[in-house]
């Protein structure tokens, strides 16, 4: 009997702190296995930088998951934001602050459209945002004329006078600015979700929408808010993508969808909070970043890394759903 409680407590501990334990373990293993390539200050900055886009996009996904909805279109929203922000500057000569603002407003509208279909037409969020993903991918390709967007090269067949992209825009995606932006996003989201009334209601809507509604909480308002915030953070992530890479490839944002969703689900269990949250999500993103970086340092074949990432996601989902069941 005593033994049983003991093993239960170990299980509980692993459930709550497993992500951090795993990260520390991965860190130690990689440091020993590849001391030169992995264990260096420069590589630490590289890891932080590489996880920052995932983390920012994942911050958005915490909103959707908190409110009990799902957004598959975040990767494509990021691609769209990347394309729009850089072309607003390069093709149309719009000043950088306005270009960024405009991009984020458009992202917010995309979130609003997702919300409309999910709330008003009762399409399951999973499917509505899957459709939105295709629409956005197609729209981005149409907008770019089907090719890579390079702000230094005018698109084929269009008469456009290019404006130079300011250095500040390009430095957004590089250390240290990108890391600071990530930390700012984490802080804002953590405060909003953990400390404000609206954050609380988001969770309540996700936890039991009918009880929340019958207590006077405006459930549809908070669901809409969740979709919009999700899309805005995806948009910020998209701007960082183009700022870091300099160009926009057609699937630039899609590669972040899976790690972002994994990060939120790993993070939900961290510290026993049992809910999607900003700090946990950052831990999740960091775990994925450390593992990915370490595998590169060990010269693990790059084409097989997705297998590892997929396994981490699966493990995270098992953990968070198993924990829910226990509740």
């Amino acid at each position, binding site marked *: 009997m005593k033994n049983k409680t003991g093993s239960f407590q170990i299980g509980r501990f692993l459930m709550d702190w497993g992500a951090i334990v795993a990260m520390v373990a991965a860190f130690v293993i990689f440091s020993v296995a590849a001391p030169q390539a992995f264990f260096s200050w420069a590589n630490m900055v590289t890891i932080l930088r590489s996880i920052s886009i995932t983390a920012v996009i994942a911050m958005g996904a915490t909103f959707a998951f908190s409110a009990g909805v799902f957004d598959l279109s975040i990767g494509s929203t990021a691609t769209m934001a990347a394309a729009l922000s850089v072309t607003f500057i390069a093709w149309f000569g719009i000043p950088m602050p306005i270009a960024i603002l405009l991009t984020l407003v458009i992202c917010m509208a995309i979130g609003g459209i997702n919300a409309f279909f999910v709330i008003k037409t009762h399409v399951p969020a999973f499917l509505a945002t899957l459709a939105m993903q295709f629409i956005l991918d197609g729209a981005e390709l149409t907008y770019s004329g089907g090719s890579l967007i390079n702000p230094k090269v005018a698109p084929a067949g269009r008469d456009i006078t290019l404006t130079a992209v300011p250095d500040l825009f390009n430095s957004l995606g590089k250390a240290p600015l990108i890391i600071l932006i990530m930390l700012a996003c984490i802080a804002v989201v953590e*405060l909003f979700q953990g*400390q*404000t*009334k*609206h954050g*609380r*209601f988001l969770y*309540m809507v996700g*936890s*039991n929408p*009918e*009880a*929340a*509604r*019958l*207590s*006077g*909480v*405006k459930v549809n308002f908070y669901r809409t808010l969740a979709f919009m915030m999700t899309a805005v953070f995806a948009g910020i992530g998209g701007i960082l993508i183009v700022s870091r890479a300099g160009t926009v490839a057609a699937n630039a944002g899609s590669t972040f969808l899976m790690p972002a969703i994994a990060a939120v689900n790993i993070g939900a269990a961290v510290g026993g909070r*049992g809910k999607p949250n900003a700090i946990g999500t950052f831990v999740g993103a960091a775990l994925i970043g450390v593992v990915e970086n370490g595998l590169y340092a060990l010269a693990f074949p790059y084409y097989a890394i997705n297998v590892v990432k997929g396994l981490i996601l699966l493990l995270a989902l098992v953990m968070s759903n198993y924990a829910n069941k226990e*509740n």
Partner: protein
Amino acid sequence: MSQIAMKDISVEFPGVKALQQVDCDFAGGRVKALVGANGAGKSTLMKVLSGVNSNYTGQIVFDGQPVEIRSPGDAKKLGIEIVYQEVDTCLVPNLSVGENIMTEYLVYGLKKGGVVNWKHLHREAARVLERLHVPLDTHTLVSSLTLAQKQMVVIARAALGNCKFLILDEPTAPLSQKETQKLFDLVRQLKDEGVGVIFISHRLDELFEICDSITVLRDGRLIKAFELDESVTIPSIVELMLGRVYNEAIDKSGRETGELLLEARGLADREHRVSGIDMTVRRGEIVGLSGLVGAGKTELCKTLFGAFGRQEGELLLRGKSVRVESPAAAVKNGMAFIPEERRKEGILVGEPVVTNLSLATLGKHTRMLSFINRGSENRAAESKVEDLKIKTPSVRQRVGLLSGGNQQKVTIGKWLDSGADLYIFDEPTKGIDVGAKAEVYRLIVELARQGKGIIYASSEQSEIMGLTDRVYVMYSGKIQKELITAKTNEAELLFYSTGGTKDEK
């Protein structure tokens, strides 16, 4: 024709004697009504007969042979079929009518290789539908049928094999009058074929139309079994159902009835679950909503609270015409709602007590930029825990771990500082123990003393009699009758609840 005699049947659950030495006979070609108040043992008896409840003592004799019915399979072998009220749970919506009727063939009847003979399937299904005069195409998807049609499909499936006895558990509760008539035609058809039908219903007026005999149960005992002829009246059946009822008096003193708080004129919800509602509630007054399960009490509560969206008709609060189109608007207009499905609709089971208690009033505990003031939130929660005597180790405890009564106090507690002056309670004592019940009653009276208006919906007549000042009796989504509690009795409540009207009496 077949005969069943149930003799000396007893069923005991931990702490409850659900059935005590009940004798009951059923005969083929006859329709027998089984009536009783909630908890009288009707369902338990039928669960024994259909093999769902194997834990009985006593004897069942089928055509002179003693039989053991210890599983649904045993019952089926004897030709005893049961159709529950929730027909949706036993149909597959994405399959056709034919496939649903022929489930048994699809599961057990396929030859080696598992190839479905579709022609056979639809022909057999069509044959049974034709036999029962049910005009349905066997290729229609069940998901596109109305509830009444689904019921027909379930009955047709039951009648397919060697069905000798058919139990219908409150089949008419969700049906319209026209649909009910169609169902009765079907029952008559089965009766003519020699099937014995056992008919459980709360709508007493219907029994006269379709049943040959009646058995009345109360508190797990057989009260009386007799032929249903012209000499029998609804009030006499009601009397048998109720018997003598013990009722603890509730102290309702110290209240003053004040100004008019709520007035509804011809109120209805968008889908007319309830309609033509005229009602008033004054300050300090406890107004009951009586009626049987399914009469529309919950629907009326939710309509008033805006939970069904747009309302039709007129709603006046404190003399002013208002539109309450969402619960949020209702809360803003000073209404509070304690719903029937506590765990699903009232509380957030996974959240701590404090979060639940501040759910409706979180705006009061915020600082600049809507940052939550946790000190203030905790203080308010702790004072509510003390006032309501909520038994919990701390306000951080998850509400799901509290007892039903304490969960209900949390549900009520979240409204206490919301400034609401109209409280709507929907079956608030459902599933909580006697002690907690008394506390809930006291709490409600206390709210009324403070000048709040109370709407109290309950399907237990004794509760309505003990607690309310005035009562609206509901039947089939409408208010059947308004009564002054002091000038009525349980029999009269039940009379109107079962669809009675003045001239019959």
